[in-house]
């Protein structure tokens, strides 16, 4: 042992001794505490950090920690003042005036002004930007016209910086949830000077200028994103100094890194949940993400609402949690728990006798004479489990044999758009936590309504609810619409609402996990 140590010392030589000295001296002089570093995993490389182009959850999570918008959600997902200290709505509900704080600064010291918002919104709507989420602002006057190329003059779009701290927004129709839209990343302010100087590389580390709790320190593509606390953050510097977000595609790998102490926070893969459920580090948060089966209502046998009702009544959804183990909450209604207008009393609950009766009424007693149909889903283990379970339940309760078929995601999406299968699986995650985001999905004009179902009464209810400020009245409108959707016409069967499952190190405090699947890190501390 000793000779080996001698050897090491000899080899290290003077450089080692010198290094040791420097280390001791600097330790004695600085004695600074080690930086508080939070290490977590993200499921993929952020496709972009340009908030006009971001559409995926990973990019949005990173941007949310770099930026502040006009409004921000509180724990109950209500929009609260952020860069806007307050806002007024005109009596007709068509004009929103946002009053901005004058003490919010970009990381290069320039104040954040209403002009930065106006520029960002018009850039989002500029057809040349090619922004997927441009339609978030389609309710603004002339926004659709400008984005679709029917109008080339951007100054006619309904957003104007009246002065540095006043932003006026004109809407085509009154939208009561508009302050929820202004909490979404695509409406965050942007710097015209920097975007014009750097082109599409303005989001590179060293160039990206932000106004939120953290700054972008490093971005090694496909590997990690490093954020650093912004000392000039208007709401006070975050307690942690650095956030390292590692791109870890495989959840089992992330879990191993958590176990070896290399990560502080990981999403838990479903198969691992039973082993950690009782751990004090386990946290489960229901999220605003619904899972459903839709019918193509234009072709037999599902053009008959009684058949659709029978299929909905025949499903015992209480079987799902044991099958999936991820904290899925079975649901009969479509607006998810945690969102305004959630009503568990709406929808068709499991009732095998009623299901059989309804199918017999439609001309298929005990499933006799029922045509061959196929339920389609995109290739995924969870989808397979659900499809096989539904296949068995429909066989057991209704006596009908349904074939199941899966396809690769993009192939499947193309099929939904061009030739929807008789029965298909899909999901929906909230873009903004308002029931409009879930309910407008099935209106006649919606590009996401693959059922091809159309009900003028439903469309009218959704349009009215979007403009109704009185909560009780709004709740009634959505209840009525949900009854049409899930009890009467049944173009879809809501199955369950998903949950997120995490392991979090006990040393982490103040982490806010919300139903929008966003990780807000500014209040996190490590003790």
């Amino acid at each position, binding site marked *: 042992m000793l000779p080996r140590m001698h050897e090491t010392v000899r080899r290290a030589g003077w450089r080692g001794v010198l290094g040791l000295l420097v280390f001791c001296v600097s330790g004695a002089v600085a004695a600074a505490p080690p930086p508080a570093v939070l290490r977590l995993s993200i499921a993929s490389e952020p496709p972009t950090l340009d908030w006009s182009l971001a559409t995926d959850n990973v990019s949005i999570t990173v941007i949310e920690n770099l930026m502040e918008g006009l409004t921000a959600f509180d724990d109950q997902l209500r929009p609260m003042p952020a860069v806007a200290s307050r806002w007024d709505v005109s009596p007709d509900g068509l004009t929103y005036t946002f009053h901005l704080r004058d003490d919010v600064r970009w990381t290069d010291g320039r104040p954040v002004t209403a002009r930065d918002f106006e520029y960002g919104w018009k850039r989002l709507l500029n057809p040349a930007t090619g922004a*997927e989420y441009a339609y978030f602002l389609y309710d603004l006057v002339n926004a659709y016209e400008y984005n679709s190329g029917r109008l080339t003059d951007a100054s006619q779009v309904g957003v104007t910086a009246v002065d540095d701290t006043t932003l006026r927004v004109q809407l085509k129709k009154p939208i009561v949830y508009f302050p929820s839209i202004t909490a979404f990343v695509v409406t965050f302010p942007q710097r015209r000077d920097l975007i014009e100087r750097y082109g599409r590389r303005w989001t590179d580390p060293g160039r990206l200028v932000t106004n939120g709790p953290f700054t972008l320190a490093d971005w090694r593509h496909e590997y990690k994103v490093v954020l650093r606390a912004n000392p000039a953050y208007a709401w006070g510097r975050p307690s942690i100094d650095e956030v390292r977000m590692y*791109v870890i595609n495989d959840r089992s790998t992330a879990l191993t890194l958590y176990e*070896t102490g290399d990560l502080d926070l990981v999403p838990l893969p479903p198969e691992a949940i039973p082993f950690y459920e009782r751990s004090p580090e386990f946290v489960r948060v229901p999220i605003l993400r619904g899972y459903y089966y839709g019918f193509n209502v234009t072709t037999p046998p599902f053009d008959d609402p009684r058949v659709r009702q029978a299929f909905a009544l025949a499903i015992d959804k209480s079987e799902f949690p044991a099958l999936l183990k991820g904290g899925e909450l079975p649901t009969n209604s479509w607006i998810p728990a945690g969102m305004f207008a959630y009503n568990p009393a709406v929808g068709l609950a499991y009732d095998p006798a009623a299901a059989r009766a309804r199918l017999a009424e439609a001309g298929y007693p005990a499933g006799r004479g029922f045509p061959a149909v196929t339920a389609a889903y995109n290739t995924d283990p969870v989808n397979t489990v659900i499809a096989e379970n539904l296949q068995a339940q429909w066989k057991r309760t209704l006596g009908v044999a349904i074939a199941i078929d899966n396809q690769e995601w993009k192939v*499947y999406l193309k099929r939904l758009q061009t030739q929807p299968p008789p029965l298909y699986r899909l999901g929906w995650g909230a873009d903004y936590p308002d029931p409009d985001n879930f309910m407008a999905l099935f209106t006649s004009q919606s590009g996401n309504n693959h059922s091809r179902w159309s009900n003028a009464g439903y469309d009218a209810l959704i349009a009215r609810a979007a403009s109704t400020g009185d909560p009780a009245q709004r709740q009634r409108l959505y209840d009525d619409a949900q009854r049409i959707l899930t009890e009467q016409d049944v173009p879809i069967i809501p199955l369950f609402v998903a949950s997120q499952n995490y392991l979090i190190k006990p040393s982490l405090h103040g982490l806010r996990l919300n139903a929008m699947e966003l990780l807000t890190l500014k209040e996190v501390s490590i003790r």
Partner: protein
Amino acid sequence: MSGPMNRLAPAVVLMIDRLVWSLPVLWLVATMTFVLMHLAPGGPFDKDKTLPPEITANIEAKYHLDEPVARQYARYLGQLVRGDLGPSYKYADRDVGEIIAEAFPVSIQLGAAAFALTVLLGVGGGMLAAWRPGSWIDRGALLSATLGFSLPSFVVGVLLILVLAHQAHWFPPALWEGPRYIVLPALTLALGPAAYVARLTRASLIDVAAQEYVRVGRAKGLPPGVIWLSYLLKAGLPPVVTILGPMLAVLVTGSFVVEYLFSIPGMGRFFITAVTNRDYPLIMGVTLVYAVVIVAANLIVDLLYGWLDPRMRVGSERGR
């Protein structure tokens, strides 16, 4: 001609020959990839949230996807000739050239380490087994080779992580921060190829050892070292070298499974994700890089071949 020139000239001829031929090969690869890509249903901007048609039109105009396919093809080839692989559709702020320039070196590092292990374990193991055919060493080597060859890398990788990282803490379980981080993924990547090389080396050496001239050499009392170096290896290695070329190409272009399992920012992942994302320019980019590497690896093999086995020299072939 003088000696060195005599040896060098065929190599130069071969290289020029291959470079000229590689152009139509690359064109064919680019064209076939382009056609296959556009035949696959679903496009880069089909998502679970369907976009309004006006927005789809804006995006298609931005990437020239609204043009007829023939025009897109011409545009693509034109860009390619200038060395421009175009913008990625999935990674909005980046060009395919940049993406590959960042990811490929990582795959090369990992692949080179795995290749070194492959040669070391494969050729070494094969020699060891061929040394005393039928002995317990031979059987042990064969058994490990069969195991290594038949276990898929995601099983080997998980086992290595479990035992050497999670339990023993000898190596980090994943990530890419320094030399220690290369060991487990390189081993995972190398085990399959090494097993294959070991079996091939063993078979080839045993085959050569049975040849008459080797038996004569032994009978004349040549020392074992000479027999091994001048006879066995010189004659037995060319078949091994033949497969090492393509193997090198496969290893340095990255492995989806290993990069995924160990969270390594290499290029292998794009062979899968670019296709699932229908990121056309990125699919083309990685396919072309792969084709170039295969062509290059085969060229190296041919050059090595000529050096190892004079009968195979291109020049002598042409001279006849």
